């Protein structure tokens, strides 16, 4: 039993698509070879498409009235008999044509083209170190170029650290103009370091340009009295650390508060999709985690369903992964709103760039002890600023103001009763 597919045939010279006007068979029908299956209408002709197989119709993939391109699968037919040698041959040929890196046959591995040899000698490359992606293991021009590029970026990195450690006495060898001969003009000083823009840095750059050039940003900031939170957390943190092995961070409480507020104001938990605004049901918070050189934005999923402990654990795991470069694509996708812990650097105010295509980002600033007037008396309180950047296409000031004051309310009323850790 094998499943065969009938495709939309080319009905005439310049015909590129056809409309299924009527199915002449239905799922479960037994069909004979050449039995008409379906009526197809094109610009030029109306025709019946005959079956190429004898068997049972398993599935019709195109509905009546639908227009599809030539070659689009129309239906699946289950065929009784074993495959005819002819179709085997074609299939074998098809697999043969597929590009495969791990080809058995390596007979071309040592057949070097003039371009490959000249590139190799120009860059001093040992061709034995390269895996060929060409036919039968042949090393192609591109293979060498990719290899050289990788090597250059590696060596530049090494050289840079060397220079950094031992005062620069000589300029780095940058004769390899190979990768960067299209530079914009810049002043040159002895000892300048050249850092290739690749990988993460490049995608950060692209995302930032996109976010700042496309999204009309607006900003607001509120001040929150988190004295209760500070007291509560200070009382619990030692025990928590002992029990769980990681820190009970303030950040987890902020994430918890934001998730609660987003539940109440789903308008902020949405994204701009061109002609629609999509309001997300799940509350997945992106958090910004940086190491020395790079910025990652992993996602904590369904924050509204998690306890403070659960959030603290996720933050801990993701931060650890980011530090060791172990974040997967899975970890970084699906965010619906971003919370950025800028306070860790001592920042008290900042204007975040929205994590495209989300609608807003909240910056949690440093908690600072400040004199505050309560009931006409000075009091020393723990104060924090929360800064929100919003996509003004999606959101307006009123809704964001309400959201912010709700976050404020939650945070100011935090205690063991309102916000249990477990």
């Amino acid at each position: 039993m094998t499943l065969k597919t009938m495709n939309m045939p080319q009905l005439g010279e310049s015909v590129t698509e056809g409309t299924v006007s009527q199915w002449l068979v239905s799922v479960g029908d037994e069909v004979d070879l050449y039995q008409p299956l379906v009526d197809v209408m094109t610009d030029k002709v109306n025709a019946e498409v005959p079956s190429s197989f004898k068997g049972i119709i398993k599935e019709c993939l195109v509905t009546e009235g639908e227009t599809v391109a030539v070659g689009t699968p129309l239906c699946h037919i289950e065929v009784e008999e074993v495959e005819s040698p002819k179709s085997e041959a074609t299939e074998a040929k098809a697999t043969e044509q597929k590009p495969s890196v791990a080809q058995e046959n390596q007979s071309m591995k040592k057949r070097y083209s003039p371009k490959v040899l000249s590139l190799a000698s120009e860059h001093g490359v040992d061709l034995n170190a390269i895996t060929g992606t060409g036919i039968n293991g042949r090393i192609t021009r591109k293979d060498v170029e990719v290899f050289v590029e990788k090597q250059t970026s590696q060596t530049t990195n090494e050289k840079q650290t060397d220079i950094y450690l031992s005062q620069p006495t000589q300029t780095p060898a940058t004769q390899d103009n190979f990768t960067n001969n299209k530079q914009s003009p810049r002043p040159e000083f002895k000892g300048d370091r050249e850092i290739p823009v690749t990988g993460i840095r490049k995608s950060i750059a692209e995302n930032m340009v996109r976010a700042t050039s496309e999204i009309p940003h607006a900003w607001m900031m509120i001040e929150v009295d988190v004295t209760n939170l500070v007291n509560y957390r200070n009382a619990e943190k030692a025990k928590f650390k002992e029990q769980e092995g990681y820190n009970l961070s303030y950040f987890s409480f902020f994430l918890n508060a934001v998730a609660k507020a987003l539940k109440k104001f789903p308008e902020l938990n949405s994204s701009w999709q061109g002609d629609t605004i999509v309001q997300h049901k799940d509350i997945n918070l992106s958090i910004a985690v940086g190491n020395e050189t790079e910025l990652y934005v992993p996602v904590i999923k369904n924050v509204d369903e998690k306890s403070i402990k659960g959030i603290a654990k996720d933050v801990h795991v993701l931060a650890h992964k980011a530090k060791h470069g172990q974040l997967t694509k899975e970890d970084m996708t699906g965010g619906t709103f971003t919370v950025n812990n800028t306070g860790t650097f001592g920042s008290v105010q900042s204007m975040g760039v929205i994590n495209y295509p989300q609608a807003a980002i909240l910056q949690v600033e440093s908690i600072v002890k400040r004199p505050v007037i309560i009931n006409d008396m000075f009091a020393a309180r723990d104060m924090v600023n929360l800064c929100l950047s919003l996509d003004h296409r999606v959101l307006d000031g009123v809704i964001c103001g309400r959201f912010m004051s709700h976050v404020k309310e939650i945070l100011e009323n935090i205690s063991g009763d309102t916000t249990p850790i477990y």
Partner: protein
Amino acid sequence: MTVMSYIEAINRAMKEEMRRDDDVFLLGEDVGKRGGVFRASEGLYEEFGEARVIDTPLAESAIVGVGIGASMYGMKPIAEIQFVDFILPAVNQIISEAAKMRYRSNNDWSCPITIRAPYGGGVHGALYHSQSLEALFASQPGLKIVMPSSPKDALGLLKAAIRDPDPVLYFEHKKAYRLLKEDIPDEEVLIEIGKANTVREGDDLTVITYGLCVEFSKKAAEKLATQGYEVELVDLRTVYPLDEQAIIEAAKKTGKVLLITEDNKEGSIISEVSAIIAEHCLFDLDAPIFRLAAPNVPAMPYAPPLEKAFMVSEDKVYEKMLEVAQY
């Protein structure tokens, strides 16, 4: 901008040039009252009259010969050969007279004639209505041969051919006549003869071709891009003399070259392109030079399956491109 077919663009080119310059006139079989067997000269007889749109006897040698004589007296004739397959009786006029006029008269005389002829297959035209004969003329210094691949090129190259001070053969693909349509600016379009055109940029392989094969290659290249291979596609536009510099640059860019023609493979235009690359690009080549062309059989067959087997097609181009990309 106006959407125009390839043949409408040819018609527009002749109209514009005849309006611009009273010395331009058209002669050929059925070009007058009937407006050409393909309707390329539709409306010209009505607008410019029988003195400038001349129906000739079935005598190609005379069509070209009269044109050469007139051009030596300062006229700018467009001589239409109904099918390029019929040009052979005029070859003596073209090669012995037109091509050599400036040279043998030590620059005293010139021959600004344009000879238009439909070529190419895929229209069930069989032996005498499907051939590609450009290679026959491509070893005659003194001649120029242009072969447009799109409506816009058809317009710009024909106008440039008519204005050229020397003989130009203008071969138009008859299948392209109504197959190809595109937006063309309403302003004057002139395309320099002798320069190739980079249709598409890519860095995995270079495809050099001309005529209708450019269209096949464009589509095949889009398809190949989905496989992760990017094609640098060069349209020669002028197949004689060749734009050596453009050919060399394009070949060096990727080191993998696929040359395509609808003509028989041996001794074709792309054979010369291949020689240029071999001469100049040895150390930049990453693969043998590949050629895709019609088989070496006398002419396009009539039977549809055989015609299909003979003709270069989008599918054949795609398969060959993939082979070269994976080499």
